């Protein structure tokens, strides 16, 4: 990024304006920088850590003033209680099913569409690409009433299919994979044809294995989107049978039917997979977002 050799000899051999090597005494600016960053980390991490600690507390510990920092015990009774006495195991299962099925569907639908848009010349291709870009600009929040009507007519209300199918075709995913596929040499596909491979076989055996990087990014995105999705599941699941975890948490917390210690435990469950994904694939997630400007 920074070409060191171009530095004029008059400048000190340290990038003074961007930072210090740490050997010089810290300037006021640097102290301020670290102070701001530490405050920032506290603001971000304290709610999460406080949630995690409190999810082990009993109801009376939660009502205590001032609250104790640590729970009396780290027993899992809140977790097991929420899963057994209230149907959180069902909601958790719904969330897992919807997230995994929708992600698989997204990968298949988006990669096939992206392949056609990237590697074939056919009538209507440019129009379809424009349509794809256009749909990025139409958020669900502004069209959920007509979308809901379509879902009603197709019998998708109160079914897990209704949570899986409509969000599975993502314009972002098509765009992401198409841009990557453009860089795959046409000769590779041509060679496959000469060897007598069928069109789908070429896609499946030659093109797709080249696209592991964008597919990985899209997998992460899709899991995050579907796992955290709220508005669409809220509209579609009107019976508790099809609640996903976020919908169940929001509905039960506002109605105060479920004890709050259970709500906290299930909130931790809803954050856990995301944080695990983040810890292991943080670099890939952030690169993917930075490179596409999409989320």
């Amino acid at each position, binding site marked *: 990024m920074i070409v060191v050799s171009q530095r004029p000899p008059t400048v000190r051999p340290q990038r003074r304006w961007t930072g210090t090597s740490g050997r010089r005494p810290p300037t006021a600016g640097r102290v301020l920088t670290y102070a701001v960053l530490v405050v920032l980390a506290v603001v971000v991490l304290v709610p999460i850590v406080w949630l995690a600690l409190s999810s082990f507390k009993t109801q009376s510990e939660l009502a205590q003033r001032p609250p104790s920092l640590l729970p009396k015990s780290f027993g899992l009774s809140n977790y097991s209680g929420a899963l057994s006495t209230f149907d959180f195991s069902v909601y958790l299962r719904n969330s897992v099913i919807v997230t995994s099925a929708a992600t698989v569907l997204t990968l298949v639908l988006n990669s096939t569409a992206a392949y056609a848009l990237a590697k074939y010349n*056919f009538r209507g291709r440019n129009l*379809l690409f424009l*349509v794809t870009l256009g749909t990025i600009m139409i*958020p669900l929040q502004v069209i959920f*009433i007509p979308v809901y009507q379509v879902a009603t007519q197709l019998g998708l209300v109160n079914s897990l299919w209704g949570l899986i199918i409509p969000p599975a075709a993502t314009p972002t995913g098509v765009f992401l994979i198409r841009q990557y596929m453009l860089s795959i040499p046409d000769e590779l596909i041509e060679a496959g044809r000469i060897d007598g491979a069928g069109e789908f076989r070429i896609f499946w055996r030659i093109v797709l294995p080249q696209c592991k990087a964008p597919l990985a990014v899209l997998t992460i995105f899709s899991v995050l989107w579907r796992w955290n999705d709220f508005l669409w599941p809220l509209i579609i699941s009107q019976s508790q049978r099809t609640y996903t975890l976020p*919908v169940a948490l929001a509905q039960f917390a506002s109605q105060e039917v479920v004890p709050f210690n259970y709500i906290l435990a299930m*909130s931790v469950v809803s954050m856990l997979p995301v944080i695990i994904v983040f810890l292991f694939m943080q670099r890939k997630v952030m690169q993917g977002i930075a490179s596409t400007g999409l989320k």
Partner: protein
Amino acid sequence: MSGSTVAPFRPGGVPRRGGRAPAGQGWAPWNQRLAPYLFVLPNMLIFGVFIIYPAINAFNVSRFDSRNGRTFTPVGARNYDRLFSDEDFWAAAWHTAVFVCCYVTLSVVVAIGLGILLNQRIRFRGFFRAVVFLPKLLSPVVVGLIFGWILDRRVGLLNNVLGAVGLPQPSWLTNGTLAMVCTVSAAIWLHVGFYTLIILAGLQGIDPTYYEAAQIDGATAAQRFRRITLPLLAPTTMVVLILSTIEGFQAFDFIYSLTGGGPVGATTLIVQYIYEHAFRSPVRYGLAAAGSVVLFCTIFALTLLNFWFGRRRESI
């Protein structure tokens, strides 16, 4: 591509101008001509059914009213008359305007500030960048829930900390103004990491030699920021501006669980207004449908305006 008159064997298999060449010359086997359509079909079918058709149909839908969500009667433009004479709509529109203004301004300012901090050569830079970005990955509705609990007047963490150091302990979520402050803060907490990442990418695209030249010429840090960073970052700032505007108008999920739109509608924004009229009894479907068309047009117009201003600023 190729100067020969005979159409070459092309990777797509199909003549360049999309099948315009007569059959038998430069044609591809039927399976190669059919394949792309089969490949795009499933995805485009879902786009068509669940995005494009509803978007086109949205205006049509807003000409009907329903009291129960099952039987619909055509009412023409009366939904809009009712919407514009509904006090709750104007309240929601006003709250949305306040929210979006605060949210967009803070997003841009905080993202640029954090972007510059995180672009420096500091210790634990990767850690701090990850921390800033982490909230974006959490479920907004769960975050709203947790914030509502932390901001609770009695048992909330914040008021207990404030009490311990002898500061006043306001009731954050039952005062309209404070509730709006909390809502904007929660929105910033959730989303600013994403904007910071975009700003960081923009900052890394600025050629460091500009700063070196400025340094030699004796420019102060403030001058370098005003004369180099801000102008060169303008296109990226524009992206953040547009994205945060759209995001602001769509705000719903974390508010639903943080304040529920309260107290007394003080944080009910337009999406929640639409949702409640469409899906909560008493159903006033016409208002919801008309409201979403108004929201659609507003977002569209503001995005165009943003683009236009961005263009003009660049040309000066």
